[in-house]
């Protein structure tokens, strides 16, 4: 059985119409279950579209359009062909005809509108599917990061003692913050570690509490940077587990921005 990565080269061949038999079947089965590969296939076909557009040449002969329009006229798909009617008086013929015409126009307008709406709906569905795929992927990442049995491995020089480390990731534009801790010692009962934002001006601001798991790891997700605050550094202290508004014990770890 091929892995996801092993299908990658086959996607291009599939887009080129190159696969057949079992190879094609296996890839199609994989695509049916793999949103990322479906998307990549569409992108590859877009690439092929660009490649195709590197062709240029003369306009097709004028007769070609006439030929096409004749063929199309010979295959009408008009769904509103009026029925044949018997000879009647002028008004008896015209009034129903006008009514039928009005209905026809109304129906055509509705159908056209419906087709437009169907296209819009298809667009929304596609976006929804893509967003749903992205959300699935993000959820998978979050589940991994927050799984109780997730093992965090910090790579350090060989034989170096293991020190507690923390990594704060934040975005000034998004005002969001997350923090990952490794190799932290357990806290005494009633205590917890507290993360602090040290602003460029003013007092430290609390940014979340955590207790390390049995491996010494912890994570703060969904943290927020207060509006108008420029973070200069981040720090960790040990506080009562209910949290504190200001640090009451020595700083255990500190990291400056930049």
């Amino acid at each position, binding site marked *: 059985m091929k892995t996801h990565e092993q299908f990658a080269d086959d996607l291009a061949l599939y887009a080129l119409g190159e696969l057949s038999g079992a190879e094609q079947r296996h890839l199609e089965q994989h695509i049916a279950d793999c949103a990322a590969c479906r998307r990549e296939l*569409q992108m*590859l076909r877009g690439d*092929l*579209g660009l*490649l195709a557009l*590197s062709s240029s*040449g003369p*306009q*097709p002969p004028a007769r070609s359009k006439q030929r096409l329009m004749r063929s*199309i006229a010979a295959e009408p798909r008009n769904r509103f062909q009026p029925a044949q009617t018997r000879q009647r008086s002028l008004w008896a013929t015209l009034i129903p005809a006008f009514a039928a015409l009005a209905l026809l126009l109304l129906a055509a307008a509705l159908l056209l509108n419906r087709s437009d709406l169907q296209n819009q709906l298809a667009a929304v569905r596609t976006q929804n599917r893509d967003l749903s795929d992205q959300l699935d992927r993000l959820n998978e990442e979050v589940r991994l990061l927050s799984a109780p049995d997730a093992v965090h491995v910090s790579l350090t020089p060989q034989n170096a003692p293991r020190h507690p480390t923390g990594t704060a990731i934040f975005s000034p534009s998004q005002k969001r913050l997350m923090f990952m801790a490794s190799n932290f010692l357990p806290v005494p009962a009633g205590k917890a570690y507290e993360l602090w934002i040290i602003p460029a001006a003013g007092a430290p601001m609390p940014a979340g509490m955590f207790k390390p798991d049995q491996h010494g790891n912890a994570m703060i997700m969904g943290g927020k940077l207060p509006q108008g605050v420029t973070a200069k550094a981040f720090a960790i202290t040990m506080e009562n587990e209910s949290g504190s508004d200001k640090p009451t014990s020595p700083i255990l770890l500190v990291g400056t921005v930049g």
Partner: protein
Amino acid sequence: MQPSEIGSTKVDDMRLAARIRVGDQSAMSELYDRYAKVVYAVALRILQNAEAAEDLLQDVFLQLWRNPDSFDASRGSMAAWLAVISRNRAIDRLRQRRPETDIEDCVVACAHDLAEETEQNLIVEKVRQVLAEMNPDYRNLLELAFFQGLTHNDIAEKTGQPLGTVKTRIRAGLQQLRARFAG
């Protein structure tokens, strides 16, 4: 992408597709004026025969007329879709095989506006420039696979490259085209 961000060309293509669905022949006429040159150029380059290219042009547009639901305007540009369909049909003819891909199965993600001839010419120039700057090995493989319709086995034999290398380079070439085009 939000619906309000759908480009005007895409909306135009959507409207044309909607009119074709209800049997509006004038919409086909507009579509032909807009994209016949693209389809004909691809067909001519691959088939190297004006008469065969004209037949293929007829075939592609008639297929769309007969099966208007095959194009989903929300999932790519009409020009790129028609270009890929034309290439696939032309290769089928070169290999004298029946069409391998249903046109409705072909979803082409391409965000470029190509409704006007000037836009099409700009894209042609840009693609050619990107191809000219591409690693010649990759470019050659794309030419053999895409325009000459050689299988990867044929290409491996012809170029003396291992099969796996051919596969990987074809994909890498396409991704390079995408990346440089976006850059």
